């Protein structure tokens, strides 16, 4: 049984981390405007996040310490603080966006305005955070998140012209009316939405909390190699269905209901219901993951006790930070700030921070004094270095592109 439990750690990270509000928004927008012409970005993201999640997990099983804890010892207090403040700002925005995502899924199901659902969704998150054990939590949302596979089914149900899909995927350039700047902006947005560092922090702390040891390494790798590609497949499916249904009609995706609409077109009411459950599970899981990741980051930077394994009172400052962030995110969501805009800004911010958060992981994973026989081999080093090189380019281009394209509008 423990194998099944362990397996869901990877699935939750994939569904809740890879497919979160950022993907539901960015993938659908990209699909409607560019078809599968940005499909290659998802492949890069899958390779990148798999590579670094594997390293972070390997560090965790070897040292029994999660990635962010080592970041400060490795980079020093000042540089570590920069990474902490940056990822705090990004995940705070993401918590708000994910929470709105839960509320939007409930709006889809009930037709009641999402702002009315926000406080209720926050309360539900708080109850789950407070009472549910770590493993039960990841199991429930990992399994519920599998309903997102309905997007893959919908691709077939929509009976697309496969040669058009393939031709689109093989053309890495903008479509007719779009500019290169917009195309590149969405490259940044997709990378930011898919290669989210909180997945890595959550994954590595999860490995510590589940007391994984070097003998569990094979299982951990299976999780990474099944979980993240599965997330990537879902992302491509969301792009594909948006392409098939919206591209010809020239419809722009501005609301999360449009992400689910192609499933309704292809699979009818039942498909839509399953998709809504999937969106609910993915955003709910991602809300928990982002909350935890933020709590972990702060607690690990200052060396506090943390964690879901302990009861809330045993990690009081961790609990206070996490609950405080949830309240702040709820308040932010209730300002009626558009969750789609917040999501796009958050993923671009996130993309620009990637090199700072990936570098310490690569440094530690490659350190034979710390890692011994589990240190990086040539494959991990080459891939890791290549991914960091890409993220540096992304990081430099993120803000100029955000301003230049006014968030992809121009």
């Amino acid at each position: 049984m423990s194998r099944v439990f362990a397996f869901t750690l990877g699935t939750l990270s994939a569904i809740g981390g890879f497919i979160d509000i950022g993907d539901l928004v960015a993938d659908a927008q990209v699909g409607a405007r560019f078809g599968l012409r940005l499909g290659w970005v998802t492949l890069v993201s899958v390779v990148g996040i798999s590579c670094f999640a594997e390293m972070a997990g390997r560090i965790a099983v070897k040292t029994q310490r999660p990635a962010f804890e080592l970041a400060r010892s490795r980079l020093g207090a000042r540089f570590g603080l920069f990474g902490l403040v940056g990822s705090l700002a990004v995940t705070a925005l993401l918590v708000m966006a994910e929470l709105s995502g839960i509320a939007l899924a409930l709006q889809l199901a009930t037709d009641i305005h999402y702002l009315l659902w926000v406080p209720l969704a926050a309360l539900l998150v708080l109850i789950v955070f407070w009472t549910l054990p770590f493993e039960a939590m990841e199991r429930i949302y990992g399994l519920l998140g599998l309903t997102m596979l309905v997007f893959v089914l919908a691709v077939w149900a929509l009976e697309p012209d496969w040669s058009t899909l393939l031709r689109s995927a093989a053309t890495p350039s903008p479509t007719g009316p779009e500019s290169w700047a917009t195309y590149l902006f969405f490259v940044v947005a997709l990378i930011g939405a898919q290669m989210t560092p909180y997945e890595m922090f959550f994954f590595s702390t999860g490995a510590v909390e589940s007391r994984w040891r070097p003998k569990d390494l094979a299982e951990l790798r299976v999780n990474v190699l099944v979980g993240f590609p599965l997330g990537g497949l879902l992302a491509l499916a969301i792009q594909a269905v948006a392409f098939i249904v919206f591209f010809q009609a020239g419809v722009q995706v501005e609301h999360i209901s449009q992400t689910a609409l192609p499933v309704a077109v292809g699979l009818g009411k039942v498909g839509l219901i399953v998709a809504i459950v999937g969106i609910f599970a993915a955003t709910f899981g991602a809300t928990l993951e982002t909350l935890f990741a933020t709590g972990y980051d702060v607690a690990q930077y200052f060396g506090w006790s943390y964690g879901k394994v302990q009861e809330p009172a045993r990690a009081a400052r961790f609990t206070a930070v996490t609950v405080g962030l949830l309240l702040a995110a709820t308040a932010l969501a209730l300002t009626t700030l558009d969750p789609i805009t917040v999501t796009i800004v958050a993923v671009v911010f996130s993309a620009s921070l990637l090199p700072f958060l990936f570098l310490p992981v690569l440094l530690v994973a490659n350190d034979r004094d710390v890692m011994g026989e589990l240190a990086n081999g040539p494959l991990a080093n080459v891939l890791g270095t290549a991914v960091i090189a890409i993220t540096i380019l992304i990081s430099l281009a993120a803000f100029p592109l955000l301003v230049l394209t006014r968030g992809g509008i121009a």
Partner: protein
Amino acid sequence: MTTVRASISARIALMDKQIVDRDRLPIGRVDDAELQLPDDGGPPYITALRIGAQALGERLGGSVGGTMAAAAARLRTDPSPAGLDVSLVEHLEPMVAVRARLADLPQIAPLERWLAQRIQRAPGAGDAPQ
């Protein structure tokens, strides 16, 4: 007081490291260290480790560090940063391990204790979720 003599770089081997108590519960990080210069003009030695955001802020300096230290100081009743006598240190690798138990070190993390008392009163907080 025992004296540990070692020719290691305090900055690399000590600073920013995780500190755990004898039950391996996290205490904090080595946010700063107190040095003493001996009267005979010998090399300085470390007398205490400083723990907490106040110590870290004072070490970092600048506007960011200053703000952090000021905010952290307001959350403490004791005006000086929390210190841990160096004689309590058991070993430095891979984490700084301390001989005492966290419960016996009242100067460390008073905020954690204050919050824990309040959280414990909330419904469901006592249920260990494992």
